Structures are given as C-alpha cells and as structure tokens.
C-alpha cells in the first residue's frame, strides 16, 4: 500500500469504523473454524481468525490495511460453523460498509463498485448494467478498467442479455426510501 493510503487509514474520521464489527465478534475464542471454512482464505493477506483478533484489539490500521474483508464472498460457511454462533459474515459486511463510508483509497476498486451499483439502483429502481458500469468507470478514472469488463459485456450483448439502451425512465422510484434511510442513519 502506498504511504498516503496508509496515512488515510490512520486518520479515518469515524471513531466507530470498526466498533460495530467489534461488538459482533466480542465473544470470539480464536478457534480458527472460520479460517478453516473460508473458501477465499488462500487469497487473503490475513486469515479471518487473525482479522477478528485485530478487530477485538482495535487495530484499525491493520484491519483496514488488509484486503481480507473485501474478499469475503458471503458464502456464510463461517457463520454456519462458528461454535460461538457469531454472525461473522455480517461482521465482514460491517467492515465493508465502514470502508465504503470512509472512501478509503486502498479499497476503492471494490467499494466504488458497490457504491455505484447502489447509485444506479437509486436512479433507476432496478439494475441497469450499462448505467452502473458507466458510473463506476467515471469514478475510477482508470483507462484500463473498462477493458477488463468489456469482453464479458460484449459477449453478454451478443447474446441479447445486456440492454444497450440507456434507461429512459426518469422517475427514480426509490428516491424517497434512499433519502429516508440516509436521514435515519445520520440521526443514529
């Protein structure tokens, strides 16, 4: 990770960035069943068990300096097997939400993907791949990124599985709900 990204993690504004996850894993006994069950552990720089220990110790820099939580694919095996009955997949979600709120540069490729997906849903009510990808590429400003998706995009379009029309509906059917949810989250 580059130094500025590391500095950014050090100064994450919200003091509770990992607090929610910490409450969720409070009674972790460090048995490692989560690590043994995780299909993505092979690709992680810290195992799930290590991540929960760091969360419990309040090591914010180490937690958000790791890509472990972004690799959770929500298979729920660790949640199913945890002998303490902890909602570990939801704790992973809580970390993803915190990284998204804080807009941490190191995790932007992942968090911007989800954030722009949600923005597209906010505007159109349902997912429109073209609208969503356009937003995502615009935020990422990486000239190579669209290429990574273009092969699948073109194959989908060739099979008639991708609408290449820009959605015309301007109604924003979910606007009221998005707005109310944001107000309530801010108000605590």
């Amino acid at each position, binding site marked *: 990770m580059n130094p500025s990204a590391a500095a950014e993690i050090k100064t994450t504004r919200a003091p509770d960035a990992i607090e929610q996850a910490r409450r969720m894993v409070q009674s972790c006994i460090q048995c490692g069943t989560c690590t043994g069950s995780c*299909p*993505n552990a*092979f*690709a992680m720089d810290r195992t799930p068990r290590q991540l929960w220990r760091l969360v419990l110790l309040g090591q914010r820099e180490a937690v958000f300096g790791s*890509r472990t939580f*972004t*690799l959770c*694919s*929500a*298979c*729920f*095996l660790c*949640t*199913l097997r945890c002998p303490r009955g902890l909602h570990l*997949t939801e704790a992973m*979600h*809580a970390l*993803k*939400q915190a990284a*998204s*709120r804080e807009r941490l540069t190191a995790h932007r*490729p*992942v*968090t911007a*993907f*989800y*954030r722009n*997906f*949600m923005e597209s*849903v906010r505007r159109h*009510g*349902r*997912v429109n*791949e073209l609208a969503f990808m356009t937003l995502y590429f615009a935020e990422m400003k990486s000239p190579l990124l669209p290429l*990574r*998706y273009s092969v*699948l995009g073109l*194959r*989908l379009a060739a*099979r*008639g*599985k*991708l*609408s290449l029309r820009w959605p015309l509906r301007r109604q924003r*059917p*979910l606007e*009221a*709900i*998005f*707005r*109310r*949810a*944001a107000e*309530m*989250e801010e108000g605590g």
Partner: protein
Amino acid sequence: MIYHYYPGCSLEGTAREYDLSTRAVMAALGAELAEIEGWTCCGASAAESTNALLALALPARNLAKAERHAEIGAVLVPCSACYLNLKTVAEKTRKDPSLLSKINAVLGAEQLRLQGRLQVKHLLDVLAKDLGPAAIHPKVVRPLDGLRIAPYYGCQCLRPYAAFDDPEAPTSMEPLIRALGAEVFRWSMGGRCCGAANMNTQRTAGMELVAGILAAARGADALATVCPMCQMNLDAFQGAAGRLRQADLRIDVLYLPQLIGLALGLSEHELGLRFNFSVKGDFHRRHLKEVAPHAA
C-alpha cells in the same frame, strides 16, 4: 398453488433464461406465479456492502408490496442472492419487532408498511418440497436418459438459513434429477462457493474457485444451477478457468428449470437455451438419443 413471484434484476437481463424456464416449468406443473407489481432491486450484494439499513429496506419494500394481496401466502424467488435478502428481512423482523418498526419508518417514506406475514421460498424449495418429484415424474415425456448431472447449489439458498436442505451436504436436487430419468453425478462441490461477486471485483481469487468447481465436475455431462451469479461464473468463464488449470473444463451449465423443462418436452427455445454461453448447438441432439414421446 399460487405464489408471489419476485424475478429480481438479473432475470430481466443476464439471467433471462432463468426467468423463461422458471415461468415455463411452473406453468407446466400447474403452479401460478403472480409477479409483484412495481418490484425494485433487493440491494443484491451491494446494499449490504454499503448501508445496513438500506440492505433491509430494499427487500422489505418488495415484501410490503406483495403483502397487499392477502390471498397469497408465499413469495417464490429464483435468484439465491435475492432470496437471501428477502428471507433475511422475513426472519429478522419475525424475531425483532423494534427492527420491524425501524424498517417501517423507512418504508413510510413511500406510504408502505410491512406486516411480516409472508413466507419467502427459493425456487428449489418449491420444486423439491412443495411440488416434489412425484408431481414432476408423471409429466416427463422426454426422459434425460443416462445424462449425468452434477447438482450445484451454491451458498445463499443453503446458508445461513437451513430452510429446506442440509446447509453443508445438500441433496434436495437429487430426487428431482432422478425424476427426469437422469443420473446424479457424485461429487462434494455442490455447496462450495463460486466466488460470487469476487469474479467482478477480484477476479484472480474468484477464478480459482470457479476452476476448482469445474475441474471437479469433469465426468459429468451437465451442471445444474439455481442462482444467476453461480450460473454466470460457471457458464461464462470456462475458457479462462481451463487456461488456469491447463485442462479442458468445458461443460454444459444449465439452470435446473431448463433441465426439468427439457424432460417435460418444452422446446429449447422456450427454455432459453440459446442464452447459455456453454450450451453450443442442440443440447438434446448432443446428449440424448431421440426418444419418441410417451403416448398420452
């Protein structure tokens, strides 16, 4: 038998064939689907990664809309991610009235109110338990004789809610596959994760999982799936996965209702087989000896 039907966004686009085949097979089996009017996105795996309250409010909105029709008691959902999002709201609000009021405070912005009286059911649950092999078998006119089908369940229809199957060693597809005249390919990968959205955000990690599943399916004639995300991952990346493993990992990947529909005598066109990347040409001609339909 009538269900509310929540197709979800994928079934309008990248998983069109799942929508076509689900509707066709349910009609052939005499079950009625009432599509939820004005349904919207359930949040997919994006809401839970960005905002916890929206992750509950978005699926809740669809349940609240469906509840207006008091005569129907269950929602049928073919997509496993949508299913889990809707199911999570149903399960959590049942146990937590304060959460229900919080969700209703959000839905109030649209004058909607969730009571929490609907059952949320995955398509596989309905096919395997509500209808069952006994309802399907007598309607089979083109048995899938000798076809070895590997049942692939994925994760979110099995976990965390063990609603209709063993969440670690699932078997609910097996009697259905046998009812079609096909054989169940024995393997242990049915409930292993396909990498889900990691195929979009962190492809190297996702590809390993896809390659592992496809490699384990060698020897089967077809893979059966019950989720658009699993289908996309296993159907569209066989070339890249094969290069990773240096092996030929090509296999026909079909949605379970496509396979059921074939056995029920529905056409490949009706079932949308032209939309599957891995199905090249006429599935029937390649895999099955032509059998004359049973006399009625």
